């Protein structure tokens, strides 16, 4: 039972990060129908930038306060990621809005390769380690240990998701976004500035990605230029699991995937009598995904879309 709660806590933390990244995928997908392959790399850039700033600040003054470091990291990482996301949309995706869908997918892959290699040239191939400035307290709960950092990650993620929900459902911009997602042409005729809306989706998604990147690098303590790929893949899986294009779905999918992965890693050995070890955790995640999609072909919370010609 201890293991169960422990893995649940770990899974929830991991899942919150997945959910934040998945929101970026799902917003873009919902509005322009593009799998933004470069989104994971935006997360990576956020993580790398924050790590670099933190190392520089701690290097300059070892007694600098942790909050100042995190604040400065956010202050640099968020605008940087927003700039990257906005530029990618403006330069690489916007001209292809009317092109076949796969063409945009390929440019997204191209952007991903470009971002990764730029990051490699700027920050090098090695792992950057996040300085040890956070000294999270550890709490005991029913035999499981959870740190204040884990709690902070989950809470901040929940807060951000709430804010995003409010933006999408309560503001004019959110209304415009939902209208554009439903039908771009008609929304345009109704006076919605499509380009602004799409840019806004990329900006918001990238800002969330920057924060997610910071969470990853503070939680695991390291960042590297290839980290965005697997993270993005998992987050995209989470978005599809929940029903892509659906904000609540992305959150549910992210949390679910995180929990499944952690539980899978913790229990798969026992379940199979030691035949399969914990390195099968990724298999576990994908098998669950396949099963969910077989029984609910449009994701957990996705609407059943009628077959359109």
């Amino acid at each position, binding site marked *: 039972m201890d293991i169960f709660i422990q893995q649940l806590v770990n899974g929830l933390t991991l899942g919150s990060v997945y959910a934040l990244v998945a929101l970026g995928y799902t917003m873009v997908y919902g509005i322009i129908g593009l799998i933004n392959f470069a989104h994971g790399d935006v997360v990576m850039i956020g993580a790398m930038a924050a790590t670099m700033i933190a190392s520089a600040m701690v290097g300059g003054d070892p007694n600098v306060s942790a909050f100042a470091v995190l604040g400065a990291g956010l202050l640099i990482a968020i605008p940087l990621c927003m700039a990257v996301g906005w530029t990618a949309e403006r330069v690489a995706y916007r001209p292809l809005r009317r092109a076949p869908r796969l063409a945009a997918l390929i440019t997204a892959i*191209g952007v991903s390769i470009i971002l990764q290699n730029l990051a490699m040239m700027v920050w090098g191939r090695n792992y950057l380690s996040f300085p040890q400035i956070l000294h999270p307290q550890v709490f005991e709960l029913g035999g499981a240990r959870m740190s204040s950092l884990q709690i902070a990650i989950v809470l901040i993620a929940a807060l951000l998701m709430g804010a995003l929900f409010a933006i999408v459902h309560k503001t004019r911009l959110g209304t415009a976004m939902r209208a554009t997602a439903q039908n771009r042409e008609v929304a345009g005729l109704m006076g919605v500035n499509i380009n602004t809306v799409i840019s806004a989706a990329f900006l918001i998604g990238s800002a969330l990605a920057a924060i997610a990147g910071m969470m990853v690098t503070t939680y695991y303590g390291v960042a590297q230029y290839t980290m965005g790929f697997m993270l993005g893949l998992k987050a995209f899986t989470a978005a599809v699991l929940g029903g892509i294009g659906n904000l609540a779905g992305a959150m549910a999918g992210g949390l679910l995937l995180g929990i499944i992965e952690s539980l899978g890693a913790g229990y798969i050995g026992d379940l199979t009598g030691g035949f399969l070890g914990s390195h099968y955790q990724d*298999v576990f995640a994908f098998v669950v995904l396949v099963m969910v999609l077989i029984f609910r072909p449009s994701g957990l919370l996705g609407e059943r879309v009628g077959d359109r010609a």
Partner: protein
Amino acid sequence: MTALSQSRGVSSRNLLGIVLIGIVLAVLPFVLGMAGQSWVRILNFALLYVMLSLGLNIVVGFAGLLDLGYIAFYAVGAYTWALLASPHFGLHLPFWAILPISLGLACLFGVLLGAPTLKLRGDYLAIVTLGFGEIIRIFLNNLNAPVNITNGPQGINRIDGFKVGEFMFSRSESLMGMRFTSPEKYYYLLLGITLLIILVCMRLQNSRIGRAWEAIREDEIAAKAMGINTRNVKLLAFAMGASFGGVAGALFAAMQGFVSPESFSLTESISVLCMVVLGGMGNIPGVILGAILLAALPEFLRAVVEPLQRLIFGEVVLDPEGIRMLLFGLAMVCVMLFRPAGLWPSAVRKRELAGTTGDRT
């Protein structure tokens, strides 16, 4: 349509073209060999990628099913050869036994993947195929315990080369007064099989099945209404595509003499997809062009970037590996921006895009 008119009655101009291409293909390894045997090896890999792209083209280009886990079939083929012709299990079966087994197994995996995903469309299909590819790779990586089947991350080495009777492809020898190195021999083998696959693809495209695939790609519901058994036809697309991947994988294992799960990562699946889309989905010559370009471009850049930096700055200023992939990514983006239908799109697709409908699917 164009392929159809070509296959009927070969005009003298076309004949001349074919003869010229034939001569170029026949002497190509020797010309490249002068610049170094590594270029012949790159050429061989380009041919393998041509096979893979043509296989994926059946699934993505003809039937319109986005597959992001295609490399799994390549892996199945490669590991089949590796397990049946290496000291790992002590088996050394001849090629005529292994090739059909690889093909059949890959086919089976294609159907296994296809069957549960029939109902999924578009991007859901993409993510499931991606998951499938990853699952296969993770299994290859971990099936070394408790029973050692794939030898885990170390991979399998000392795999037998391709040999027909006493004729070994993995050894240099002199034939009719000319010296043939191993890569050159493999080149002709791969070229022959590639040509066979091209022929099969061209015939398929204009067959009843090919038209059925096209109908499904354009509109699945309408295709169903026209009496096409969409389930069987889609499964067939997966199986056919997979079998080409399986053959290519077997040849890869034989040529390399070594396989490991690393060669079958998601990045590889994505590269093959890029070849198909960049070249021009659904158009066989376009796909071949895309495969050759994308296979050769990174190697070309590798050879050019470093000396060029030395020439301009007098030293290596930027990491050549990084700048090479950077240029590669830029090239991908630029090609798509300026030629959204691919470098050499099929005539139908070109017409569609020239129209004002703005069809995105």
